[in-house]
């Protein structure tokens, strides 16, 4: 297996991360290393802290120094847009498109603000890049459509495409398959696998078990802000605490 090589330095290191909201501890001493090129599944019941963890990584929430290290750099003091430029992109659990724009304009925002040469590159060059991503995502036909007219699966793909337009090293997919039909789940899953094949590290949060199992090289299960299991998908699924907390047996 080429991806997720254990000998490489971790791309993302979460070190003893604790996040409290008032008296409520959303994340309790979470530590994990994500390796370059890894396909990482993140599961856990509702309210277990999955999205909080993502928000801490992408910068929506601030955390203590050195708790989030990306590519060898402590990024805990960086605002979200700088983290995006460093190579962390995400989609949202509830899609958050730019509603006043067309699909391709959504992607152009990413191109405009993440390429170091955004002042020199012409609008046409940005447009070509965005079109290439849309083609890869199977959204080329919808490039000029308003996002308000998209179906749920198209909206999910658009979010992934917008994240890809920032040219990430790490892509975090936050329940990109929620509310989709069986065949649509497969479509999005195939897309994510294709992206992983392009040596992008992917963290996938998902409730759809068969998708997580098919996708992940490693799975981590959170419950009440703590890691209760981490390892090979089959190991994690066999874990008694995971079955109790998550699968509800």
């Amino acid at each position: 297996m080429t991806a997720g090589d254990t000998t490489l330095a971790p791309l993302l290191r979460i070190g003893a991360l604790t996040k409290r909201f008032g008296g409520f501890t959303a994340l309790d001493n979470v530590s994990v290393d994500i390796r370059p090129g890894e396909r990482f599944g993140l599961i856990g019941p509702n309210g277990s802290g999955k999205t909080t963890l993502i928000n801490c990584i992408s910068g929506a929430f601030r955390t203590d120094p050195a708790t989030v290290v990306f590519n060898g750099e402590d990024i805990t003091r960086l605002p979200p847009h700088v983290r995006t430029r460093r190579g962390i992109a995400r989609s949202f659990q509830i899609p958050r498109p730019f509603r006043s724009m067309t699909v391709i304009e959504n992607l152009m925002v990413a191109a405009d603000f993440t390429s170091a040469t955004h002042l020199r590159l012409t609008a046409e060059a940005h447009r070509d890049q965005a079109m290439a991503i849309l083609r890869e995502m199977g959204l080329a036909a919808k490039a000029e459509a308003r996002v308000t007219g998209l179906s749920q699966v198209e909206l999910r793909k658009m979010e992934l495409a917008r994240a890809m337009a920032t040219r990430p090293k790490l892509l975090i997919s936050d329940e990109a398959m929620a509310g989709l039909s069986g065949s649509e789940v497969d479509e999005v899953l195939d897309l994510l696998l294709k992206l992983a094949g392009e040596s992008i590290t992917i963290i996938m949060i998902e409730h759809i078990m068969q998708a997580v199992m098919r996708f992940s090289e490693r799975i981590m299960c959170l419950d009440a802000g703590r890691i209760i299991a981490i390892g090979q998908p089959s190991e994690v699924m066999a874990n008694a605490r995971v079955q109790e907390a998550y699968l509800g047996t």
Partner: protein
Amino acid sequence: MKRNAIAFWGFALLFLAAILLSAQFVANEYWFFAGYVILQFIVLSVAWSILGGYAGYVNFGTSAFFGVGVYTAVFLVSAIGAPLALQIAVAAIVGAVMGFAVGLLTLRMQGIFFSIATIAVTIVVETTVTNWRSLGGAAGIQIQRPPVTAPFHSYVQMLVFVQALLVVLSVAISRYIQNSWIGRGLQALRDDELAAECTGVPTLRLKMTACVISGALMCAAGAPGAMYLQYADPASAFNLNYSVSVLAMALIGGTAHWIGPVIGAILLGVTQQLLTVTISSEVNVLVLGVMLVLFVVGAPEGIIGLFRKGRRSEGKA
């Protein structure tokens, strides 16, 4: 793109030439008094729209910026007898600094909280000026106009031309922002601030930029007002009516395109002048309110929203 730019600047030159020529051919001073007010409202609503429209941060502090512009001019005239160009330039700098300060204090707040904070700023600034003895305090202050130079026959004619220059300047800036990456970033953060951040948009810096530019233009628009009235007092310079009128003009015109606030300011500005002359200056506030309600209900994207809808349905047919 290129052809658009030529058309834009050609039209701007024509507009300025027409104002210059009118100074030669129009005898009745009233037209200049009324025209000045309308041009001033165009600058204010275009400036307002840079933050309020593109970024979606509804600013109720227009009157604070406008009043500071007026009083910057008053201060410069009474202290060192500064010429008009210097008054406007300094007012723009003061406005930029004030925009930066207000932005720093308020732009971390979102939605209604930002709007309330800007009202508070207006009150703070007005109170400060009211208690500033050397600027006349609550009683106001009178200033003298210097003699006018050719080709203008009166000082007000010159002020109209100066305000027309500010119109061209502010529209050019607004148009540039709209078509540039700054505009796309502002549009993205107006749609969804967190998503914009996570797409690489430096939202706070862009909002600050918009607030600084908007503030500078509003103050610059206010500066010639001191000479226009030859008198300034806090109650009228910081009148909340400016904030409300400008907001109404921008929203009624439509904020998605730079032309929107221009159309809105002309439409409402002319209406206000007509009502002031024919009925009373109080009625125009009422009409403003009614029009705002009608537009919010019937055409939430303003006049340009109506046009775009028409064009879009034509395109589909």
